[in-house]
């Protein structure tokens, strides 16, 4: 039966030779190579759970009075978007479960992409010939951040509404076209009547771009063949691993089920984003202790630490927000995008590389990476400085002063220590 079906397709497509090569394809095996797979599987789960949620979500700012089954908000004035999210959470069977899975999958998607990026960076996997896939991967990271943010904002609750106001203000601070950009994106001075429907439209469309780039990412991986960890028999000429069929494909599929199981466990047992506790968005209210999801919190931290500075010059105003809100992410992404080329220029290394480097083998790169991680970690703490200060029983003013010093001194110190450490390890092994 299967053989007849296969023959039916082969007569029309002539795919047997490609399929044979696919079955025999050699894949190197290492636990860290699963990170990209986890990101891929989270994306599939995001699409699946998103398809379930879409028919119930109503991306509208029309004011309604809540009459659903959640008693605490009965009779409260809110947007239809917020009401439909309450409905998903309380009145749609399995709705809360799927909604929580969707949110957890988004967080794991971002986490897996980030750790995947770090793995690629610290092992030098981005070096020639893999610069194109590095760039595609970074673009996927940017699109994922954007899409997570639009999805997070869609329920129109008070917490995400605060994030929207900040995003609007950051966009407004873009030179000269900022006011236009902000109005085009949000439909007017936030909160505008159409803000949620615009964001939701983008939330549904951007995944198609993610899908296209993901396909390209995997096709290039297939064409270039995966990198190998250093070891016997592995070189720029030889690849060592197990065949796609059956061992690799079985493990790969098994991992998908395990990732799904992990996300279902979180979605079922660990509450996330309880929007009914935050309440509906209200333009003149805000909750203290507001923090965004983790992947965006470093930007929030930068906004909090950057000193007071609005500059007036030649009939224009440069908002202080412009530097941490616009320049900083552009510099961070710019450095990442150009990193393979910067490194090749500095080291003069333009050879093909198919074998990975242990981080110790490249002390400067590893030190710069460690410094960047430290920088981001300090900013993440700064993004919750009010909560941290209250928890530690200190004042925000003192903590902010300390963090301002730490954000400059910390990365430098960690970078130097990492460099010296790598150097000494390298000398000891060689």
């Amino acid at each position, binding site marked *: 039966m299967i053989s007849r079906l296969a023959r039916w397709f082969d007569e029309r497509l002539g795919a047997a030779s490609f399929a044979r090569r696919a079955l025999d394809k050699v894949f190197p095996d290492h636990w860290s190579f699963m990170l990209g797979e986890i990101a891929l599987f989270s994306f599939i789960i995001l699409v699946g759970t998103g398809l379930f949620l879409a028919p119930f979500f109503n991306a509208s700012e029309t004011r309604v009075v809540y009459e659903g089954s959640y008693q605490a908000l009965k009779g409260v004035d809110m947007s239809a978007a917020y009401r439909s999210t309450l409905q998903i959470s309380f009145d749609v069977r399995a709705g809360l479960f799927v909604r929580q899975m969707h949110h957890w999958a988004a967080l794991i998607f971002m986490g897996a992409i980030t750790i995947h990026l770090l793995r690629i960076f610290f092992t030098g996997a981005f070096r020639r010939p893999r610069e194109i896939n590095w760039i595609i991967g970074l673009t996927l990271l940017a699109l994922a951040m954007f899409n997570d943010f639009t999805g997070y904002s869609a329920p129109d609750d008070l917490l995400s509404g605060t994030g929207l106001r900040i995003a609007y203000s950051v966009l407004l601070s873009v030179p000269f076209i900022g006011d236009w950009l902000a109005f085009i994106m949000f439909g007017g*001075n936030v909160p505008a009547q159409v803000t949620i429907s615009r964001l939701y439209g983008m939330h549904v469309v951007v995944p198609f771009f993610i899908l296209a780039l993901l396909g390209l990412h995997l096709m290039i991986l297939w064409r270039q063949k995966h990198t190998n960890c250093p070891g016997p028999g592995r070189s720029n000429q030889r690849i060592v691993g197990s065949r796609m069929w059956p061992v690799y494909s079985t493990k790969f599929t098994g991992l998908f089920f395990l990732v799904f199981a992990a996300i*279902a466990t979180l979605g079922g047992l660990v509450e996330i984003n309880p929007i009914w506790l935050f309440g509906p968005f209200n333009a003149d*209210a805000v909750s203290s202790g507001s923090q965004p999801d983790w992947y965006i919190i470093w930007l929030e931290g930068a906004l909090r630490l950057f000193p007071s500075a609005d500059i007036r010059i030649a009939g*224009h*105003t440069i908002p202080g927000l412009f530097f941490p809100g616009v320049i900083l992410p552009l510099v961070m992404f710019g450095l990442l995008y150009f990193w393979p080329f910067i490194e090749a220029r500095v080291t003069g290394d333009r050879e093909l590389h198919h074998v990975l480097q242990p981080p110790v083998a490249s002390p400067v790169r590893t030190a710069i990476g460690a410094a960047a991680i430290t920088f981001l970690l300090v900013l993440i703490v700064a993004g919750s400085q*009010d909560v941290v200060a209250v928890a530690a029983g200190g004042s925000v003013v003192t903590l902010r002063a300390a963090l301002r010093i730490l954000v400059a001194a910390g990365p430098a110190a960690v970078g130097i220590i990492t460099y010296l450490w790598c150097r000494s390890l390298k000398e000891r092994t060689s």
Partner: protein
Amino acid sequence: MSRDSGMPKRDSRRGPLLRAVSAFVISIAAAGAFLVFYWSDRGTAWLGGSLALAFAGVGAGMVFWAHGMMPDEEISEDRGDLASSEEEIESFRESLAVGENKIARRRLLGWLLGIAAGLLVLGPVSLIRSLGKSPLPVLFQTVWQNGMMLVTPDGKPVSAADMPVGAVMTVFPAGQVNATASQTLLLRVDQAALKLPPERSGWAPGGFLAFSKICTHAGCPVAQFEKSINVLLCPCHQSAFDVLRGAVVVGGPAGRPLPQLPLRIGRDGILRAGGDFSGTPGPEFWNKA
């Protein structure tokens, strides 16, 4: 050793086999449980737990199978060349040149096509205009005008007698409680303690102060009033504004004071605006002088 005798081989595979079998059996049971829970409308934890177990069973079973029972020898293979050979590149160049020659014969048509296609892009691009009106007037406008009553979010006028020193509330222009850009924080301080600049000396009758509630940093509502030190705090990024000196920045990332609304108290004791804000409310942008 395991190659020439059957027994040790079977023994070494009994563990993985047992594990894989139990994983699949657990999965089957859990999948059944999920169906029962779903149809009987059980809570999120039951759904999540059973579905997770069903998927974990399949996943773990497959991994046990692949790891323990599929003979897995390491394969070494030639990577081959990524770049094309010189002959391939040369023959590509030739094919390209053949077509190029056919196009290049009609220079004029080529130019016209380029211009037409370029202009064609302008049409669709200009559709962006449909997304919104020019932002500028909206960003500069507030609703406040001289003589307008201050009302609570429920629309009730605010009487000076209702507010003791230290009190704070959110107010809007009368009849415009949805004008979010005009949201204003009204508070009362000890009149003797005021240190307003001289040109604002008449703006705070009876110690009543009114400031735009939208933070000049990133647009959050400046919602926290620290009575003891007369400071307004933004809960988003911890900017601090000294209300006695006209909400100048005394800490945090904000770059300018909150715009102040001049106030006057009528003979009826109702609070009214004495004009518009002292500046544009909300976050800064480049196209602003």
